[in-house]
């Protein structure tokens, strides 16, 4: 049926491993950066994650133009404009972003303004508005989940209209993503679990979707294997640097996979649950994943069956009859969620989350069918079908 064609892109240099932070001065110098501005949030500063970065720069005699540490969880155009002003006044010539999704998206948006000039961020909204390289951007993720360090999208709230506006361009992709185990070592168990389930969902949906391709498949399968192997280990031994690093690498690989083959119905529903109830994104993913897999089972049986190998290992895979592998893969995901519930309290149903009202389900279903991610799900879903899924997950 398909006229074979796909696009794949990942120009981000990934610097990963022990003392990766100490490698930053070399990378900055390679790109001609002399005075980077650090962009972060108060929480990151509070847990001491900026200090090892500034120390790594200091010992290499690398001056920092400044540290902007007031990025809010829900960033907006005013915040971006304010940081762009700080960038210009400080004489900075590059950006180091330290944080999670909001800090990373904000930094990408700041990079638009300081590279293109002016203060009108909305002029660059949508797809394809950027036509040239931006200033050097380094991303140091402090969660292992979003994969934003390798994606070409940023979403920023417009203060005038209140709408969340997307910005999409290959030029938004960072130059360097730095994965250092110290950056995620302090992540609390429930956030570790939720963000890892986000990364797992990125991998699974990119492997099953209509835009899947052989290259993104390779990233997705590797990411699933690493998450399944290291998430329980990190929860049992939170100070296990190696396992923490593996989770960060898996989230990054999942990011590469989904930024090229997109996500599906779990995300379409998850975006809507998040928008209406403010339930954290990773929690939405974790709750909806097995229900949507069951919904997709008839159409995606072979692909879901393939996932049993990275999810459960060679022994379980070989011991499971071919016809049972897809159901077994979903069972493994359900067992993982039970384990995470026991260890971290990560909810498995919408009612367990305590943040979703049954009366909101219809609005969530209505919003879900207008979410672009639905196009990438192999099985279409109507309002009634999404509502049924939400009721099942209640």
């Amino acid at each position, binding site marked *: *049926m*398909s*006229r074979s*064609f*796909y*696009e794949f892109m990942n120009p981000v240099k990934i610097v990963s491993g022990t003392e990766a932070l100490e490698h930053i001065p070399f990378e900055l110098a390679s790109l001609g950066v002399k005075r980077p501005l650090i962009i972060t949030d108060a929480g990151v500063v509070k847990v001491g994650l900026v200090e090892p970065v500034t120390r790594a720069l200091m010992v290499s005699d690398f001056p920092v133009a400044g540290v902007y540490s007031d990025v809010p969880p829900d960033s907006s155009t005013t915040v971006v404009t304010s940081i762009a002003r700080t960038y210009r006044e400080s004489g900075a010539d590059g950006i180091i972003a330290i944080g999670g999704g909001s800090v990373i998206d904000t930094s990408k948006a700041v990079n638009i303004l300081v590279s293109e000039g002016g203060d009108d961020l909305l002029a660059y909204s*949508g*797809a*394809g508005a950027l036509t040239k390289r931006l200033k050097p951007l380094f991303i140091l993720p402090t969660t292992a989940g979003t994969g934003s360090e390798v994606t070409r999208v940023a979403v920023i709230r417009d203060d005038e209209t209140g709408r969340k506006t*997307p910005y999409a361009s290959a030029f938004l992709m960072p130059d360097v993503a730095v994965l250092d185990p110290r950056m995620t070592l302090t992540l609390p168990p429930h956030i570790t679990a939720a963000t890892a389930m986000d990364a797992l969902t990125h991998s699974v949906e990119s492997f099953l*979707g*209509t*835009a899947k391709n052989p290259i993104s498949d390779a990233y997705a399968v590797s990411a699933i294997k690493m998450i399944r192997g290291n998430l329980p280990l990190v929860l049992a031994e939170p100070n296990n640097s190696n396992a923490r690093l593996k989770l960060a690498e898996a989230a990054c690989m999942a990011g590469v996979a989904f930024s090229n083959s*997109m996500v599906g119905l779990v995300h379409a529903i998850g975006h809507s649950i998040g928008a209406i109830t403010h339930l954290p994104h990773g929690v939405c993913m974790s709750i909806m994943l097995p229900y949507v897999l069951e919904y997709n089972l008839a159409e995606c049986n072979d692909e879901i069956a393939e996932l049993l190998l990275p999810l459960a290992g060679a022994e379980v895979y070989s011991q499971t009859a071919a016809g049972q592998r897809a159901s077994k893969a979903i069972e493994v995901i359900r067992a993982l969620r039970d384990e995470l519930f026991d260890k971290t309290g990560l909810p498995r149903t919408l009612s367990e989350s305590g943040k979703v009202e049954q009366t909101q389900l219809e609005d969530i279903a209505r919003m879900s*069918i*207008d*979410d*672009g991610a*639905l*196009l*990438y799900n*192999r*099985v*279409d879903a109507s309002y009634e079908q999404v509502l049924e899924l939400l009721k099942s997950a209640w």
Partner: protein
Amino acid sequence: MSPSLPISWRMKRLYVRFMLAFLGHGLAKASRSDKIISKETASLRDGFTFSMGVMPNGPELHMRKDNRGLVKVAKPAGKPDLDIQFKHLGHAFGTLSFQEGTAEAFARERMVVDGDIPASMKLVRCFERIEILTLPKLIACRIMRHYPSIKITEKLVGAAQIYLGVMAGFVTGNKK
């Protein structure tokens, strides 16, 4: 002297131009005559504009929502609320000749979609509804993720209304 364009390419461009016009007139009619499409388009705000075209120089289709439904219009002065541009003629021809479905064309990045994404989802559902009504089931099933059960009378009446609307559109050239 610049080389002349291949005949096959010119034919494809002609076909794509015809199909975009067909789609425009068909959508305009169906937004008033078909229950499902009019429900989808009714949720777009009045004055909403969208464009669909082929990079780099067309052909193009421009539409606007007014209180009666969608209408085919001339190229708007500003940026439309939703802009869908096929990356090249081959992609547009593949989609508009029903070698692949609208949803798959979106997923396979045959086009750049810029602007109101929720509105683009409504339009995808409208395009699919038009495919359901106007195409033989055999072809529609091949290019769609899900072919709903539909009574033959509903399909025939829906198709007849759309084809009449398209003919009327071509005759009157209802581009404002």
